């Protein structure tokens, strides 16, 4: 029980740190997309983001100013500048987002919705679509058959998973649409998809997974 409470606390703590780095703008692109998609699905967490941004504004006012090399020239250049143009977004390609499973941030990043993912079967009941390595992150979408257990694995570095559809549970809790699960190398978790519907998620990892557990457990998972 004790350790379960600690895990939950750890989990919340990590989400705070993730949001803090999102606010600071130092997350790699895939992790930023994951947080943006999360905020679309859980708009209540926007309050935390706004609070951190307000703090950052206060910090900006408190910081020791750094003198400019040539203040007058820079000011003149600003007055001489033309208005920055906006990027023309290709709205034509994007269908109406009504009824889409993927939040807009994720849709824009991967270019399709849940129904059009070119899945590859990894093992019975478990499919993935690899987006490859982006800014030092390994990025994929995953699909778990209802009731299926994914083999035990630990992580080198950390893994962020955003649930997009369905839900899964592991030793630390239950994650539904919009929830982020954070696993680091201290966590050995075996996600189990809820019965009833497949679980689809977006995962951002630091490094490739390594399989753990006894051979028997693994085979049990695979045959599952």
């Amino acid at each position, binding site marked *: 029980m004790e350790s379960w409470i600690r895990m939950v606390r750890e989990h919340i703590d990590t989400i705070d740190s993730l949001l803090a780095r999102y*606010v*600071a703008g130092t997350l790699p692109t895939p992790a930023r997309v994951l947080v943006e998609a999360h905020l679309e699905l859980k708009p209540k967490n926007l309050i935390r983001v706004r609070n951190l941004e*307000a*703090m950052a504004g206060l910090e900006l006012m408190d*910081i020791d100013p750094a003198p400019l*090399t040539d203040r007058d020239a820079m000011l003149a250049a600003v007055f001489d500048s033309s208005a920055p143009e906006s990027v023309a977004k290709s709205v034509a390609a994007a269908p109406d987002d009504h009824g889409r499973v993927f939040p807009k941030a994720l849709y824009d990043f991967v270019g399709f919705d849940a129904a059009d993912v070119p899945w590859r079967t990894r093992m019975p009941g478990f499919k993935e679509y690899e987006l490859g390595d982006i800014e030092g992150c390994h990025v994929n979408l995953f699909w778990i058959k209802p009731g299926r257990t994914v083999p035990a694995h630990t992580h080198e570095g950390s893994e962020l998973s955003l649930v997009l559809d369905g839900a899964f549970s592991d030793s630390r809790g239950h994650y539904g649409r919009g929830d982020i699960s954070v696993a680091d190398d201290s966590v050995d978790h075996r996600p189990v998809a809820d019965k009833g519907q497949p679980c689809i998620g977006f995962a951002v990892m630091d490094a490739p997974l390594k399989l753990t557990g006894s051979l028997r457990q693994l085979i049990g998972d695979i045959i599952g």
Partner: protein
Amino acid sequence: MSNDLKERLAGLAEAVAVRRDQKAFAELFDYFAPRLKSYLQRLRMEPSQAEELTQEIMIVLWHKAGMFDPAKSSLATWLFRVARNRRIDALRRDRSGRLDPDDPALQPSQPEAADDRIEAEQRDERVRKAMLDLPEEQAVLVRQAFFLGLSHSQIAADTGLPLGTVKSRIRLAFARLRRSLEIDDGDMTLH
């Protein structure tokens, strides 16, 4: 930050937006440009690069001051968001000077319910108080997380503190911030 200063800066931004007031802009420039440069240098940008980006942010302020809505945030917070988003763009891709129309900092202001407005006006005060209530040893670390965006291990390397200490202090700090800010949110809905 005093409310007088905050209101003064917002008034200057309005003068820039409505009248293209160069004098008002120069005052904003003298206040913010050296602070933005300092902030960007703390993010380990070279001084010349930091100045270049500062100029870009000031160009956004000069042309898009009308997008700033004092009911939603302070001008400092708005500029922080512009700076952050411009920096991400600069790291990621071309330096074409184009703006992303989806950039939340540049969204046209929408009418807000009266409650939202109160929320926005009081937010700065509440978060400042919450930060002041943190023990300094926690405040320093949490600032490095949300302002400079450092990871736990970077903070540990920078400060020389053990990673476990960094993690536990930051955890305590965020729990405390959440408690004071979210209790206040709850209180506000009663009024």
